[in-house]
């Protein structure tokens, strides 16, 4: 039994349009029944016909679904599907559910996410947005760094902008992801987005308290895994946004520039400045960079200390980037 529309009585009234009908083919194509993409060709030929006639009907919905399943990046098929949904006044929440599996299957395709964004915009419901955020948690479980999914999540939050229903659990969510993988750059970005880059969260009105909390958090994560670029980028981001001087962090950072942890006998517990944990690989390159920047900012006779660190980085600890921005200063002090 053929799955082809050409054999489907429901489509008997439609004349399919072949790919090169209006174009002089560079090379004529002969499709055999054994051709591996006969179903796809069949579907797209019928699709071309309905686009031409402008048909928007339930069978067109079925057809676009077929095409999308075979080729999720077929942007014209998505467009026509959306137009048809609107024209038919279809249940858009049902459409979201229908597209859930496609989203999970083809999560690296731009179109699946844009379609959902259009649906959310049309439905315009905070309840649905909340459900969508839940759905995205499932998706992110499969691919914790999926760029499309994350930027779509950020759009939902900003667009609906509902503190109690949508924003409230986001910091905790980012934190849970970082608990699972402290090197998840997307989760770090999301945390910054939620805390510092999208207005003031309910409960975060005391900005000094937020500053302390975020600095404490990132220090803890650095202590657990110092060689984590995302955490150091986050730290620098917090310092810049809160106008905290580098100097305030030097007591914390300094132990990370040593080759090993201080001996247990020398260790003084300082809750504000967690030391590197047992497993940490030291010295930490990012810590060295930080100290060097701090010395440079201090100026005066701290500058030679910065130069010493830059030499160490260039010659030994980060030779990949030895021709970096410090090269001029290094050359000048030779």
């Amino acid at each position, binding site marked *: 039994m053929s799955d082809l529309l050409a054999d489907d009585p429901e489509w008997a009234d439609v004349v399919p349009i072949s790919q090169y009908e209006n174009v002089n083919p560079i090379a004529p194509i002969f499709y055999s029944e054994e051709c591996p993409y006969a179903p796809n060709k069949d579907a797209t030929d019928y699709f071309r016909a309905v686009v031409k006639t402008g048909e928007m009907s339930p069978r067109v919905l079925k057809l676009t679904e077929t095409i999308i399943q075979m080729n999720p990046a077929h942007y014209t098929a998505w467009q026509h599907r959306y137009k048809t949904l609107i024209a038919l006044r279809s249940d858009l929440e049902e459409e979201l559910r229908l597209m859930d599996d496609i989203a999970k299957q083809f999560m690296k395709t*731009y179109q699946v996410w*844009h379609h959902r964004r259009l649906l959310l915009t049309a439905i315009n419901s905070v309840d649905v947005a909340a459900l969508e955020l839940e759905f995205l948690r499932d998706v992110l479980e499969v691919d914790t760094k999926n760029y499309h999914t994350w930027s779509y999540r950020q759009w939902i939050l900003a667009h609906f902008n509902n503190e109690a229903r949508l924003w409230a659990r986001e910091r905790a969510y980012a934190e849970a992801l970082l608990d699972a993988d402290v090197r998840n750059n997307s989760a770090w970005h999301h945390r910054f987005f939620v805390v510092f880059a999208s207005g003031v969260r309910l409960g975060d009105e005391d900005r000094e308290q937020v500053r302390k909390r975020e600095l404490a958090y990132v220090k803890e994560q650095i202590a657990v895994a110092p060689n984590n670029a995302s955490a150091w980028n*986050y730290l620098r981001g917090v310092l810049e946004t809160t106008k905290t001087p580098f100097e305030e962090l030097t007591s914390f950072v300094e132990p990370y520039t040593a080759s090993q942890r201080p001996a247990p006998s020398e260790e003084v517990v300082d809750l504000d400045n967690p030391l590197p944990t047992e497993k940490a690989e030291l010295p930490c390159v990012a810590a060295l960079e930080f100290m060097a920047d701090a010395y440079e900012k201090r100026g005066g006779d701290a500058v030679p200390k910065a130069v010493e660190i830059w030499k160490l980085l260039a010659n030994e600890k980060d030779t990949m980037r030895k021709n970096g921005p410090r090269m001029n200063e290094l050359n000048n002090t030779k």
Partner: protein
Amino acid sequence: MGLTLDIPLHVKYIQSLGENKDDLVYHLTAHLRMNAIYWGLTALCVMKQKDALNRDEMIEFVMSCWDDEAGAFGAHPDHDAHLLSTLSAIQVLTMQDALERVDIPRVVKYILSLQQSSGVFAGDAYGEVDTRFLCCAVLALSLLGRLHELDVEKTVGYIRRCRNFDGGFGAREGAESHAAQVFVCVAALAVLDRLDEIDQDSLGWWLAERQLPNGGLNGRPEKLEDVCYSFWVLSAMSILNKIPWINAKKLTAFILSAQDLEHGGIADRPGDQPDVFHTNFGVAGLSLLGYPGLDDLDPVYCMPASLIESKGLRKGWTALPRRELA
């Protein structure tokens, strides 16, 4: 003694694309055919083999993708117009010296109609927004000689809002920094003479940190290397005059190791299947790194440098000096 770039093999690979039109993959990639032609042609130009593909056939194909309803180009005949394919079409026609075939006023109208009130551009009437499309619009208008019709402040304003705490840029306001999005924002700012919007040292350093111990470049911290970042990262650094900040020798070796020396083409990383996208960006990266025997590439437009210069569009970027052939 290391690998070298097998130019004749890659030229044959590009020529062979599209030969097997019965192939399922060929059919399923119709939505990016225009882009693929641009990638193929650019790679050939950089390898100094522009005539390896038939000029007339290519121009006719490009024109067959004209969407007369929208006044712009789609990816394939009967595909709706889109900014991505419109830029690729303009780039191809420019490289083929056939820009006179384009109805410029209509295309300009199409492009400008896609700018939203926030300053970002949609990719098409469907409304997906992304800084990629903003870049496509800026590059396309520039190549068409109609940049003066753009609201520069509005456009730059949106890019500014995409700047993140790490100095990088994302696809939209609020989105994570990503090397490809960094490129599109930097290239657009370069064309608009607004590189002052960038903290160049910070961003240059973030880009330099994309280099992994294996020499390859990734797109964000803790992600895998991919040959295409050899272009996105490298071109941004070239525009910021900071290519020396990465290890050229190791990156060159990485790109060369991603070649498919049996069938031709370059893959995203060693051992994977090649495709024309990675072939183009691998060769483009090598050109910016001064690899011998290649032609100079303009990193802003990802097109031959001499062509861009002849149109008076060259900006103040620097690539590594071209090494002599052994």
